[in-house]
């Protein structure tokens, strides 16, 4: 097996045991990126020299016994909305084409303390607004399973990089499904933790009350290991939680006996592709066979999540993106007449279409005369949606369903009709409104060979239940695949 095919956790063990080094791992990965990324475009920036420099340093610390953790020496890819001191951070926008942060995101610092080696920054939808990575100002990313298709988004570069073996694991951010959906489209594991679990300090804000950073990994074990490393309380993020229960790897147990799993009827209705439905229900059947109690129920309010989300997210975005003014950093227009004209021209030339659409919608719903009718209304609906989840979690340990209604669409098919694209977020978006944890786990492929993801949603702070169920399912699939190979052999 090539080194680039290893999981993050197994690579760290191999480095610790002296079978390979952090430098060899980084070199192998950089060569892999060189070979694959011209076609896939997972990365906006590859930091070759920096990665090799970090790897040498980390290797030294490992040999001295100063770094012993489960990610020490393992190269990682970061979504390009995570600030990295000294390394270009563009948010895949023209307006930040030359922005070099002076500080590093807290989540990234946590990885660095654990001995991570940063390979570079991955492509995404501009400012994380989009579901296909096609709104990037730096070109589209292609799905490694079929390069005519999108990788999903907005963390499409991160998901595709993991799937293509262009990194051992990656970080993404999830505001309405932006980790889980590309993970599903690319056949990798992706998790959005409970809101407040991972510090947002240094994450370029989109919808602050919804944004969470999380891992995209090759398997469930890596997901738990990375999340355990990311989670921390941070005084610099006023919404950061104090949690004592972040030993997520303790949940890697093959046991779902007695777990109560609810499948919302609302998640299996109109618009859901038959092949996706069949794969997800088959996966549910596996969990049932392993001892979980699975039943269908009505979640209610599902169709209100998207309009509530786009109102709230656009409102927060319009406020958060006011900072891009052509003065302190980023793009400034060449010719202008006075200050306000400079603001307007810089922003109009610097932002892409989807970002402008959301800023305008957000400005409108927050404007006087419409604030109550739109913005406050959406916040009230959010409270109702949260209540519907509370009622569901009184009966069930977790909710199971698809991640997205279809597999990855073809490149070029989604942006023409924004509203239709938004509808694809139907199963992921309510999770962000309610602050819940959710995980996407590969559960098969459609007849075109495109991956399908199963989503498990937990109540706040119940990541461990999700990881346990995901791990149990993954182990079952792995064992039955091995058994098939054995029979055929």
């Amino acid at each position, binding site marked *: 097996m090539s080194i680039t095919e290893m999981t993050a956790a197994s690579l760290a063990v191999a480095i610790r045991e002296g079978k390979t080094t952090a430098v060899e791992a980084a070199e192998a990965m950089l060569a892999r990126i060189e070979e694959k990324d011209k076609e896939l475009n997972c990365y906006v920036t590859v930091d070759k020299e920096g990665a090799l420099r970090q790897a040498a340093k980390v290797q030294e610390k490992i040999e001295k016994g100063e770094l012993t953790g489960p990610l020490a020496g393992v190269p990682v890819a970061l979504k390009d909305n995570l600030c990295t001191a000294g390394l270009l951070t563009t948010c895949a926008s023209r307006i930040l084409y*030359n*922005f*070099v942060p*002076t500080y590093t995101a807290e989540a990234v610092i946590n990885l660095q303390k654990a001995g991570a080696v940063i390979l570079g920054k991955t492509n995404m939808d501009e400012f994380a607004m989009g579901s296909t990575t096609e709104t990037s100002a730096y070109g589209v990313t292609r799905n490694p399973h079929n390069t005519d298709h999108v990788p999903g988004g907005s963390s499409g570069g991160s998901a595709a990089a993991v799937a293509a073996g262009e990194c051992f694991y990656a970080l993404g951010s999830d505001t309405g499904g932006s980790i889980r959906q590309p993970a599903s489209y690319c056949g990798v594991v992706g998790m959005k933790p409970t*809101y407040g679990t991972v510090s947002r300090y240094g994450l370029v804000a989109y919808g602050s*009350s919804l944004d969470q950073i999380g891992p995209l990994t090759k398997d469930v074990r890596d997901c738990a290991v990375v999340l355990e490393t990311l989670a921390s309380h941070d*005084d610099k993020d*006023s*919404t950061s*939680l104090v949690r004592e229960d972040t030993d997520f790897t303790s949940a890697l147990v093959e046991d779902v006996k007695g777990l109560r799993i609810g499948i919302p009827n609302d998640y299996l209705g109109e618009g859901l592709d038959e092949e996706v439905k069949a794969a997800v229900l088959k996966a549910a059947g596996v969990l049932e066979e392993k001892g979980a109690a699975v039943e269908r129920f009505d979640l209610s*309010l599902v*169709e*209100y999540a*998207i*309009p*509530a989300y*786009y*109102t709230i997210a656009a409102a927060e975005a*319009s406020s958060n993106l006011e900072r891009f*003014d*052509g*003065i*302190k*950093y*980023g*793009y*400034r227009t060449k010719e*202008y007449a*006075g*200050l*306000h*004209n*400079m*603001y*307007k021209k810089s*922003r*109009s030339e610097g*932002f892409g279409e989807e970002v*402008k*659409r959301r*800023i*305008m*919608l957000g*400005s*409108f719903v927050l404007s006087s005369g419409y604030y109550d009718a*739109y913005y*406050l*209304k*959406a*916040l*009230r*609906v*959010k*409270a*109702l949606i949260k209540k519907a989840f509370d009622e569901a979690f009184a009966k069930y340990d977790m909710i199971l369903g698809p991640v997205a209604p279809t597999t990855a669409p073809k490149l070029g098919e989604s942006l023409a009709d*924004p*509203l239709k694209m938004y509808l694809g977020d139907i199963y992921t978006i309510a999770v962000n409104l*309610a*602050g819940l944890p959710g995980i996407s786990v590969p559960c098969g492929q459609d007849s075109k060979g495109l991956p399908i993801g199963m989503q498990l949603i937990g109540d*706040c702070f119940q990541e461990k239940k999700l990881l346990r169920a995901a791990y149990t399912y993954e182990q079952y699939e792995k064992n039955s695949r091995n058994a098939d190979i054995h029979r055929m052999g």
Partner: protein
Amino acid sequence: MANIISDETIEYVGILAKLELSGQQKEQAKKDMGRMLDYIDKLSELDTADVEPMSHVFPVQNVFREDVVTNGDTREQLLANAPEEKDGMFMVPKTF
């Protein structure tokens, strides 16, 4: 009810959003926003008279800390990102 976005409204939104749109972009923006608001109007089907708006899922309070400087002097690095700077300050267009 279909939302018709007037020229005045899109002009006003452009001022709030600090965006300058061409004539064609304005027409497109009017259409896009109208369609999105039609969709968002779905929320009015729900009776929320007795529901408090929920901005955060968890109770969020102000987090206070002592006003102590913990970061070093990064003025040069910060100014290196500025489109224009002069004498250690950001350069802005003449404002009056």
